[in-house]
């Protein structure tokens, strides 16, 4: 058994969502009193992840994927349950904890839009207080494996989406985190960039032993990368195991697409 790096126990989180209603009277009332719906985003989520794993975290939109990622990255404080990651509780030791993780939000950029990529990196170096030697080594390694050299001095706004995503991933690895969260890293990328990103994730996982947790809607990502799948729906954990096991359970042929299998699985759980 590998060392566990992440241990989640009974994590639960609910949100109050203000009811929005049409009509002038209702709207006027809403100014004074708001009606709330309580939405349970996460219900009793428990799992543990070992060092060096690549875990695919899947589920339909609104199932609680990003809430879980937010809890694990220390952004959000859950209502109940405990979470130990590398000996830290993410939401209490935020500043010391986040030095050890890298986060990529696929839909948002952490790079400064108008300046060359390298300037953003220099700033990150100071934010994370990365020692010069380590920064240079990492930068060299990253720009070699991700082919950044040709556009590292170009302002971000002039980069293509694929180039930008490669820069984003590199940015979140400059401080040598041992845990990497990737939230939809391949969204909107063309085939070439997708393959490059996947290849890179594999490489850093193998060579640096970085544990990777990725959410995605692209089942091909999962197939190419993940040793293990966590599936979440309506805030509860529905499946935890390998892709092969899942295939076996459905008795599907290789031919049948993964997407269809997942749809079937969603249907089965009525989500």
């Amino acid at each position: 058994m590998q060392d566990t790096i992440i241990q989640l126990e009974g994590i639960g989180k609910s949100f109050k969502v203000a009811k929005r209603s049409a009509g002038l009277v209702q709207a006027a009332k809403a100014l004074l009193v708001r009606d709330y719906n309580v939405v349970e985003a996460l219900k009793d989520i428990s799992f543990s992840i070992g060092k060096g794993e690549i875990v695919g975290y899947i589920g339909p939109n609104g199932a609680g994927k990003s809430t879980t990622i937010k809890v694990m990255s220390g952004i959000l404080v859950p209502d109940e349950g405990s979470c130990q990651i590398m000996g830290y509780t993410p939401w209490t030791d935020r500043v010391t904890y986040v030095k050890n993780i890298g986060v990529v939000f696929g839909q948002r950029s952490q790079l400064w839009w108008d300046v060359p990529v390298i300037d953003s990196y220099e700033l990150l170096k100071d934010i994370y207080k990365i020692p010069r030697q380590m920064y240079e080594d990492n930068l060299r390694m990253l720009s070699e494996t991700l082919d950044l050299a040709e556009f590292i001095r170009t302002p971000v706004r002039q980069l293509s989406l694929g180039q930008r995503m490669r820069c984003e991933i590199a940015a979140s690895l400059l401080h040598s985190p041992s845990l990497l969260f990737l939230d939809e890293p391949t969204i909107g990328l063309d085939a070439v960039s997708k393959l490059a990103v996947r290849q890179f994730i594999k490489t850093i996982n193998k060579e640096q032993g970085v544990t990777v947790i990725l959410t995605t809607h692209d089942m091909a990502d999962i197939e190419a990368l993940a040793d293990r799948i966590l599936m979440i729906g309506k805030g509860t954990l529905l499946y935890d195991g390998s892709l092969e096991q899942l295939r076996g359970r459905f008795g599907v042929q290789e031919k049948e697409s993964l997407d269809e299998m997942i749809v079937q699985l969603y249907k089965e759980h009525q989500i």
Partner: protein
Amino acid sequence: MRLYFKYVSILFKSQLQYRASFWLLSFGQFLVPFTVFAGLYFMFERFGQLQGWTFFEAALCFGIIHMAFSLSECFARGFDAFSGLVRRGEFDRLLVRPRSTVLQVLGSQFEFTRVGRMLQSAIVLGWALYSLPVEWNTAKVTTLILMIVGGVFIFAGIYILMATLCFWTIQGLEIANILTDGGREMAQYPLNIYERWVKIFFTYVIPFGCVNYLPLLYILGKQDGNEWFYMLLPLAGILFLLPCLAIWHIGVRHYRSTGS
């Protein structure tokens, strides 16, 4: 601190990418308070004086508060523009970084075009200082500097308060203008011309009076009472920042428990 300068330099580079726009905007920023100051000038030209205050005394008042305002807009703009940051969901990004949120938000924006505004305030300030028959000594110069610093802190505090509000709602934030723009417009004239409730509010709640009107009395030799007291009043502006920061941290905690 070094990190803050790093932020500043990267933002400077960004803004220089749009050079023409940068200069035009700086010039525009010069013009905005210029027309307001022209208004003040014309009013004095028409009426001669303002309840015992001469034009240059009022100009000093104007210069100090506008200087403080432009500095705060320059440095604390990140909080001023915070609603955009929250709406774009970029605050999450700041939370996964190992630095304090206050520093990161400060570093998220830096408005260099306010240099235009600053220049305008500096000219008014210089003109007023040159024309007023004040005998300058170390104490008075210190007070003057403290007044500007205190003003910057008050504006920054208000920006932080308003930014905190963004954790709950991003609607109706225009009301903040009462405190920032309103405070500025009001404090550019000596506080004694206003009604009691305005005086009380802007002395004890938002202490603009403490960084502008009251110490100005001391500088102009109009105060009655202890000189030291008037001299040290601008420190109230610095103290004002503390509760604002505390409230900010409550806001961050709220954000982290609701994630909205």
